[in-house]
């Protein structure tokens, strides 16, 4: 597995005068701006893996993050994932903290591949930035590594 891009946004553009929006600016209510973890990751397996198994792994991953957020009483802004194989079969997965919605291209269910691109964004109100990164990265790694066997 190779990490292609691992970046998170800052709330202010680096090249501009820093603007720290207060909770009041953003929400007109008590709270904080969200922590955001956003990553593109290549998932490469020694053998082909069925799209349905990748779906199930990512559902478990999103469930894990969702349940962690609920347990910590964090508000899920949005967790969303887009995965594609080299034939452009794809899966779109999203959750706002309750159920997890899946939509996929026609070919996804029947497809198998050894190479996937996983694009993952988690926007959550409450945790510190680095804590969110740790938790999300750990869930992604755990589920993708489990697909190796």
């Amino acid at each position: 597995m190779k990490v292609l891009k691992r970046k998170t946004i800052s709330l202010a553009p680096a090249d501009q005068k820093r603007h720290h929006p207060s909770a009041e600016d953003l929400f007109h209510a008590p709270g904080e701006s969200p922590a955001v973890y956003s990553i593109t990751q290549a998932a490469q397996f020694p053998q082909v893996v069925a799209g349905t198994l990748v779906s199930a792994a990512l559902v478990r991953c999103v469930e894990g993050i969702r349940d962690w957020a609920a347990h910590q009483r964090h508000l899920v802004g949005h967790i969303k994932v887009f995965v594609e194989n080299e034939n452009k079969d794809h899966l779109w997965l999203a959750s706002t903290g309750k159920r997890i919605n899946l939509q996929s291209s026609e070919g996804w269910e029947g497809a198998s591949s050894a190479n996937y691109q996983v694009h993952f964004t988690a926007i959550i109100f409450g945790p510190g930035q680095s804590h969110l990164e740790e938790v999300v990265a750990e869930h992604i790694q755990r589920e993708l590594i489990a697909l190796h066997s």
Partner: protein
Amino acid sequence: MQLVIFGGFLGSGKTSLILSLAHHLVNREGSDKPSLVILENEIGEVGIDNKVLQAGGFSVKELFAGCICCTLTADLVTTLNDLHEKVQPKWVIFEPTGLAYPKKIIETVNQYGKGIERIVVIGVVDAERWEELTEITPGLIEGQVSSGDLVLINKCDLVEPEALAMIREQVRGMNPKAEILEVSATSGIDTRIWGKVDEGSQA
């Protein structure tokens, strides 16, 4: 160019609704010149929505804004003016972040945008999270609802009719002028609803 702006909280269904509107517009316009461009401003370095929309076969441009609340301004105006000069699409659909106030966007576009004949603002409400969100972030939700020419109460498949009636009443209180419709993006949108966005564009 006709500009359609979708305002609504994170996960309310903006992208799902844009997919539906884009299909409607492309089908209706036929296959002449590129008639539709979608502009995306997402939170997070990696765009998910642009991939979803591109997979749907649409032309998408990403706007990069470092600050979630200031969002865009410069980049949006530059992109719109560039589209006006080079592409001249009939329709531009813009999805700001779920934390943006559409009012600020409209002001900026009115002040600096070129070649925009009409702006339609669609407020998207997440019926499932209405109670929670109006409690946690009432100012933002009201800002997103009150700017809409049309307000779509989305995910109505997930709430009971009584709850829906209450949401409608509160939405009405925030925006007395707008047409308010209950929809479910994932169950399909009646083309008559998108006809409302369309109407006035033929003149």
